[in-house]
């Protein structure tokens, strides 16, 4: 007898036979009131009276227009609400429709990360972590949380990571890519130490504001420059992490770069290696060529994937980084969202796409097969 079964997830790519993991979903609160249950009276007073103070020159909003309101898909607005605020809407439009097996939450705005006030940043990030559990994970077993940390305060960040250690609902530590000092500096080492203890990878998601101009020539004029600039600022972060000796000190540390692009990675490896051969006397704590640390410790997410004109160039880049180091990301509900059915060109071999959708994230996050 033939049985017609409805398609469970019409938007799921057929090649995702080892699971479909999305390592970049952005939830947001309708208002700061949602965090209030986990903020002390004093901190709530501070939030109300002084507000969130990002490290850039604008009291409200962003330095650049984000292509679309709230940087979001026009069709991702739940009726009467903001994008990313409604679990049912997210289920319907994304988790169910695309058949996502595991989705990792990366709360970006407002989260208190990178705030000028360290104490407020610590209180806010704690609240955001509790909020992820209560508001999202409690009702949706497919979602996982990130440990949002007040990264400009290494010790406070380490406390927050240790508070979450051993809780399988948290699968990574989340930083933003623009920090007050390069990420290899000692002030950030407590983060790496606590993450290694907890067995969690450290992800940094593109954006955030450091207090510095985002290019070393100053502030650019346009959003297109801001979004393209991640290739250069993330190079500085990768170089710093490697050259400061972070991976010699923390050999089990894994770094995931989300939304940072990746075609720039091989050339950074080549250049570091070239100079290291002549200059290694300056950095005797490095025991291996910089590119070896790069390939061993770094993972990347796909959205937005680089699009060279020649297909083989993309394949070469991905192969250099490592086919097991690349994770699918949707960036839902943001405007530059990647539909898993169309995100990857078909010239990427099917078994590679299968791993990018499932096996690689499963291995990085240590999530066993269902």
């Amino acid at each position, binding site marked *: 007898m033939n049985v017609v079964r409805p398609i469970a997830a019409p938007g799921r790519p057929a090649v995702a036979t080892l699971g479909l993991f999305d390592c970049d979903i952005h939830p947001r609160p309708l208002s700061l009131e949602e965090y209030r249950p986990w903020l002390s009276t004093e901190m709530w007073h501070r939030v109300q009276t002084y507000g969130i103070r990002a490290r850039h020159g604008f009291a409200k909003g962003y330095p650049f227009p984000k292509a679309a309101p709230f940087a979001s898909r*026009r*069709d991702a607005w739940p009726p009467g609400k903001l994008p990313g605020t409604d679990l049912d809407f997210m289920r319907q439009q994304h988790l169910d429709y695309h058949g996502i097996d595991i989705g990792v939450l990366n709360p970006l705005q407002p989260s208190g990360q990178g705030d000028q006030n360290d104490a407020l940043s610590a209180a806010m990030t704690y609240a955001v972590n509790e909020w992820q559990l209560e508001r999202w994970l409690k009702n949706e077993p497919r979602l996982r949380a990130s440990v949002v940390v007040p990264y400009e305060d290494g010790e406070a960040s380490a406390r927050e990571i240790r508070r979450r250690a051993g809780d399988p609902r948290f699968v990574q530590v989340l930083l933003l890519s623009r920090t007050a000092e390069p990420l290899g500096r000692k002030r950030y080492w407590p983060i790496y130490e606590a993450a290694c203890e907890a067995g969690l990878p450290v992800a940094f998601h593109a954006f955030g504001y450091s207090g510095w101009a985002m290019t070393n020539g100053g502030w650019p004029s346009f959003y297109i420059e801001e979004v393209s600039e991640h290739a250069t600022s993330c190079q500085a972060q990768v170089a710093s992490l490697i050259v400061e000796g972070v991976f010699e000190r923390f050999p089990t540390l894994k770094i995931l770069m989300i939304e940072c692009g990746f075609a720039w990675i091989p050339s950074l490896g080549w250049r570091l290696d070239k100079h290291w051969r002549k200059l290694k006397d300056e950095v005797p704590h490095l025991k291996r060529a910089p590119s070896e640390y790069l390939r061993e410790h770094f993972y990347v997410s796909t959205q937005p994937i680089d699009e060279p004109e020649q297909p083989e160039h993309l394949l070469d880049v991905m192969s250099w980084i490592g086919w097991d180091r690349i994770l699918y990301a949707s960036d839902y509900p943001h*405007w*530059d969202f990647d539909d898993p059915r*169309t995100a990857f060109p078909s010239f990427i071999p099917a078994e590679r796409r299968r791993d990018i959708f499932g096996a690689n994230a499963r291995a990085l996050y240590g999530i066993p097969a269902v």
Partner: protein
Amino acid sequence: MAARYVVAPVAEIPPGGRKVVEAGAGRRIVVFNLEGEFFALLDRCPHQGGRLSGGKLCGLVESDEPGVFHYDRKGEILRCPWHQWEFDIRTGKSRHDPNRTRTRAFPAHVESGAALTQEGPYVLETFPVRVEEDYVVVEA
């Protein structure tokens, strides 16, 4: 030959408005009224498949040199709700690569209800109820 689909009374799609219709098995088409002129596009972005009907209609900003801008063709440029790819609703051609990147455009026009009821070969006996209205017809 393209089939003809009577998709809506004219009054249902006011100027500046739009309607998503199904024409053929599961084929979604979005119909626009641009100040009385009707245009129909396949409701699927050629980039990643976003539904164009959820996009914003805007105009065209052009520039002859840095710092000098012209804004015209208001309401004629459709932006995909996902990645902001822009399409000319008159032709379905994209702004950034009009010859290679385009969504399919279908002819659309207005016919009087009275004329439509004359079409055959099988014409039911009709009563003169709404035949004086005009209807939007898409050839898809």
